[in-house]
């Protein structure tokens, strides 16, 4: 269990400090797999339904998403994130502070017992990482990765309070995320075709 939580922290920090997009895609995939496996290794007694759900999450986040994203990376012919709005070192430092902040914050929340509180802390940290990626990067692909990391964090939070969420809803959420990534992939393809680049900060035609 603690190994998985350690991996979760590591993937977040890696994402904040790395510029190679293909590597980031793999890191997000690893994070998705880790989060998908957490309910299997720890927490409540395992039901078949939880098993199926975890398995679908792992297949989707570890297999389908990276495949889709790597494809659009090839189409757009980009390799790295250049000159993000917040530099890699600064993002990494913000990341460390966010990690400490989340742990302190989660331990004061009236949620579950202490065992859960660490998962909650790391889930919040993951969400903050996702938001940081969303606001600080230039490439469209980085934003999709940011969205996925945010979604991973929410999924992590969900594993703690999940006994209230019915199975149909969980699958609905997974389906939505899948369609979202698919849609964003098509959108990136269209941006690349019309603009010849995927720098989102240069999409400034519309204002006022």
């Amino acid at each position: 269990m603690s190994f998985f939580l350690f991996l979760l922290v590591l993937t977040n920090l890696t994402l904040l400090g790395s510029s190679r997009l293909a590597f980031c895609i793999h890191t997000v995939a690893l994070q998705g797999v880790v989060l998908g496996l957490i309910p299997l290794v720890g927490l409540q007694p395992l039901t078949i339904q939880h098993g199926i759900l975890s398995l679908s999450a792992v297949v989707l986040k570890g297999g389908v998403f990276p495949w889709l994203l790597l494809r659009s990376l090839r189409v757009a012919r980009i390799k790295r994130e250049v000159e993000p709005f917040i530099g890699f070192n600064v993002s990494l430092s913000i990341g460390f502070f966010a990690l400490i902040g989340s742990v302190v914050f989660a331990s004061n929340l009236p949620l579950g017992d202490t065992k859960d509180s660490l998962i909650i802390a790391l889930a919040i940290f993951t969400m903050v990482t996702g938001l940081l990626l969303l606001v600080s990067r230039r490439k469209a692909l980085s934003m999709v990765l940011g969205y996925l990391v945010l979604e991973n964090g929410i999924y992590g939070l969900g594993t703690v309070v999940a006994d209230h969420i019915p199975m149909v809803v969980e699958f609905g959420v997974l389906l939505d995320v899948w369609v979202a990534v698919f849609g964003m992939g098509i959108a990136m393809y269209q941006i690349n075709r019309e603009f010849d680049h995927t720098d989102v900060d240069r999409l400034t035609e519309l204002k006022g």
Partner: protein
Amino acid sequence: MSSLLILLFCIPPVGISLTFFVHRGRILFLLSLGVVLLDVVCLLIGAGGLPGCLPMQTAGGWFYLDALSAWHLLVMLLVFTTGSVFALGYFRDDLVTGRLAVTAARRYNQLWLGSLWTMTLTLLANNIGLMWVGMEATTLVTAFLISVYPKPVAIEAMWKYLIICSVGIAFAFIGILLVAASLPTTGEGSQQLFWTQLSTAGGYNLLLLKAAFLFSLLGFGTKAGLAPMHTWLPDAHSQAPGPVSAMFSGFMLNAALYCIMRHGAIVNHALGSDQFTSRLYILFGLISIVVSAAFILYQRDIKRLLAYSSVEHLGIITLGLGLGPAGCFASLLHTLNHSMGKSLSFFAAGRLGQLYGSHEIRRIRGAIHSAPLWGIALAVGLLALVGVAPFSIFISEYVLVRAAIDRQAGVVLVIFLLGISVIFVAVLRHLMPMIWGEGKTLPEKSCSTSAVIVVISLLGLLLFFGLYLPLPIQGFLSRAAALIGGLS
């Protein structure tokens, strides 16, 4: 009777699968219209007994319909019906010239029916998680309606919409998780997150529940276009084709606001008072009105102007939610009125934009001479939207002012009236030259029958509800307003 809900949910996907067998552009649009009309017919057949047997649920409680969702269902079908009819004329030329290929037309209609489907799911879902699933699906389905014509600006708008709304809606899901976390761990009844159970359950952790409402308000508020989370809205609304803009403004925003109403009812019930939610509703309502007033004043693009007007009206509806039962009544009435007025205006703006080849206000001149039908439609639509009597928006705003006076919310009232006065003046200043100004004459174009039907029926409805609100509808709205309050 309860099979009605299943039927409403199953009709759109059947329509979508039928589109695969149609290979003529025109027929595709007719098919869409047929599917929407079938929905309407189902609802009308059910409507005879509807008020009596509400609330009803089916499929093990997963589908649920009460006065609040039934009202929104009516508004939705009105918007989709007029939109489908208008689309027949709007896309006709492009289908003939081949600017809109058959594959693009098929995709458009699939997405159009897909939006209908996902919004129906949002309204019928009893489980608040499923409601979220429906709402998020709406974003994904509608995004590609913006870029039916793949111009660079349309793609830019689509991208912003997709990212901002996906992230916003993700926040709303945190809200739903927090609702689940705030439930007592032992209550058997509320295990499934059904709204019907949540709105009567007890023993919540109130702090978490309040936090949950904040997340919902911010998350769904992003989708509802409440300022300051509205930044995607003017781009998406202005770049989408006419019928799509009308559907966005006319109902999609309301669907997101509907989700907020449901959450608010749970919170009001748990807290035993509506003070907490009221303050937030009023705050976001007023911010939206003030922000939109500032942007409408200096607007250069007619469709962006209408988009900001949507921010304003969603602000007004949200404001009403914070003013007690009378305010909620006004909000629900305003929902219908705004949807009619905004659809009419977006139809007119879309068609005039096609005729003049631009949506810039300074390029559209003397519309009443060059395209009388659409000139009148735009004039009346905008006049109705700024609240001129005898159109129905005047009535709902009047009821809202009365509600504010009854609650002795003086400051709120002053800001509200100032905001809509500024918008009144600004819109009239833009409107005059567009309708009556001197401009180049356009080549004569005949109006299609579908256009005449849409304009006349929307005009008639705006006027009708402005002059007379039938008693059964009043009673129905009061019931729905009580559901938003959640205190009964």
